[in-house]
């Protein structure tokens, strides 16, 4: 039984019902310790079932092994995590070492169907790094947002060029929010995402290496990540798409840079602006992301180009991000260089 399946939720609900029934039935026959044990069982059952649902939404622990404390590390050999037909891309999980950052993490990679065609075998593909929210893992993109299904559809419809999409972890500790920054005395997530991950991809995948072929996207915390990293590394990325993002990281980095160099609004108002293209989307009833996104749009002046996309409602939810990911991927593809022969 998977930890994020409906089966686990139903099992949790049944256990709660059983403990509740036992409490009602046995109350009169038990002394205090027995009654206390049943009350604890009910409370724990309710808490655990609610936690299962929260985890199902965020995919913080995508497996029982992850919950048991197993470090996020894939099989030593690449593992297909989705069935595929010739028209479908593949999701493969690799281990990406971090010689520069010290973070060694698994990374799920979407390889488009064209990657495996005879013509595609002679091509290098453009790349999008897709960053998850907090709490969350790359599995949030895979299971909650069906990223592979969306990419397959957009590519098959000709709205998007075949593109390799990288789904990296942003933290080695599931409940430590890095916001893709180099935390003082902590994980060096920015270095991992902007140095180690690209270096690994260039060395192991048929991807283009030039700036014009690399972009970032993300939702919620991952949207802040995408904007912050594209502004900090414009020599590496040409474009970024923000789905319900914020101008600041909302954490303490340890050197107060959350107010300066790790703050999108500060960068846009205090530093020379790089020539990057931004897609910024939000739901109008998601007031925090809406106001933050509007502030970013107001500050982003040429040579930055900005396109905005807002839906009237949907909040800060997977529903909105499922709605936005297709348009955002299409737009990114319009702003990325095409698949091309190795240079």
């Amino acid at each position, binding site marked *: 039984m998977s930890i994020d399946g409906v089966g686990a939720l139903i099992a949790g609900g049944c256990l709660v019902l059983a403990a509740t029934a036992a409490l009602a039935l046995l109350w009169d026959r038990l002394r205090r310790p027995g009654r206390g044990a049943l009350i604890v069982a009910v409370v724990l059952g309710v808490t655990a079932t*609610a936690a299962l649902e929260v985890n199902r939404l965020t995919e913080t622990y995508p497996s029982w092994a992850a919950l048991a404390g197993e470090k996020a590390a894939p099989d030593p050999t690449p593992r297909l995590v989705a069935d595929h037909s010739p028209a479908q891309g593949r999701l493969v999980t690799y281990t990406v070492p971090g010689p520069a950052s010290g973070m060694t993490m698994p990374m799920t990679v979407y390889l488009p169907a064209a990657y495996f065609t005879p013509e595609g075998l002679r091509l290098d593909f453009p790349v999008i790094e897709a960053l998850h929210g907090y709490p969350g893992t790359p599995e949030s993109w895979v299971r909650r947002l069906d990223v592979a299904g969306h990419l397959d559809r957009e590519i098959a419809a*000709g*709205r998007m060029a075949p593109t390799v999409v990288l789904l990296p972890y942003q933290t080695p500790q599931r409940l430590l929010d890095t916001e893709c920054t180099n935390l003082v005395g902590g994980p060096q997530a920015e270095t991992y995402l902007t140095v180690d991950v690209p270096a690994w991809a260039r060395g192991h995948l048929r991807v283009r290496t030039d700036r014009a072929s690399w972009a970032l996207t993300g939702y919620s915390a991952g949207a802040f990540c995408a904007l912050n990293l594209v502004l900090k590394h414009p020599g590496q990325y040409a474009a970024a798409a923000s789905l319900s993002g914020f101008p600041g990281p909302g954490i303490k980095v340890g050197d107060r840079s959350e107010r300066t160099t790790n703050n999108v609004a500060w960068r846009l108002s205090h530093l020379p602006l790089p020539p990057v293209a931004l897609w910024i989307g939000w739901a109008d009833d*998601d007031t925090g992301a809406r106001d933050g996104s509007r502030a970013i749009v107001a500050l982003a002046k040429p040579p930055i180009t900005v396109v905005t996309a807002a839906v009237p409602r*949907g*909040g800060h939810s997977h*529903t909105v991000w499922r709605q936005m990911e297709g348009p955002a991927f299409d737009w990114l593809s*319009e702003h990325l260089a095409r698949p091309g022969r190795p240079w």
Partner: protein
Amino acid sequence: MSLTGLPLILLTGGLALVAAAATVRVWRWGGRKRIPLRVAGLVAIELLLVAEIGLVVNRQQNFYPSWSALGGSEDVVAAPPAPPGRLDDELDAGGTIAWSPPGAAAWRLAAAPLLVTGPEYGKHRDRAFPVVLALTTPAGLAETRRRAASATGLLTLILQPTRGTTAASLAELPGLLRRDARTGDGLVLLTDPQWSSLAAGWPGRPPVVAGHTATAFDSAARLLPAPLAPPQQLPT
């Protein structure tokens, strides 16, 4: 009643208290209904408490600001297809045609502009093609035409400027090109060194590749996006 409003939170909390009080009251009742009533009371308390915590967290974080957000919508709309270019009938076949839009005389070119397409242009009529705009000289013309004819997934516009050609005088060109051919926003300038200052002043500052060799043409083509169908857009 608003999903994030205090009334719903107070109502849910109040119902939890009522359920708790009622459960305590029926706990010692005799008869066959005692156990079902106990279970029903406990389950009601459990559900209401979980709902109360969820409502408070949702109010703080604004995940679902309204009932409709809870249901959500995943609708997207396809952007309207790019209108066919006026010259598509000629361009669809692939090859080179002379382009003579109105006002081209003001561009003060040495020769009529040339439009070059490959066979995919006619094959993918739902897609907008990116453009290599070559600012060339008579010496570079033949090589540029050769490369343009064999290029895939793009449209090449070849201009032979003169000293009288300015970026300002070419301001109408993008609009005219979009009217006559299915072109997208992707644009790279391939420029002979003689016209580098003209290229540098191009509106929108597109990427510029110098030279008219085969390698230079390929470098320019590599910078372009693929020809793409109109993107999905969000309903507004």
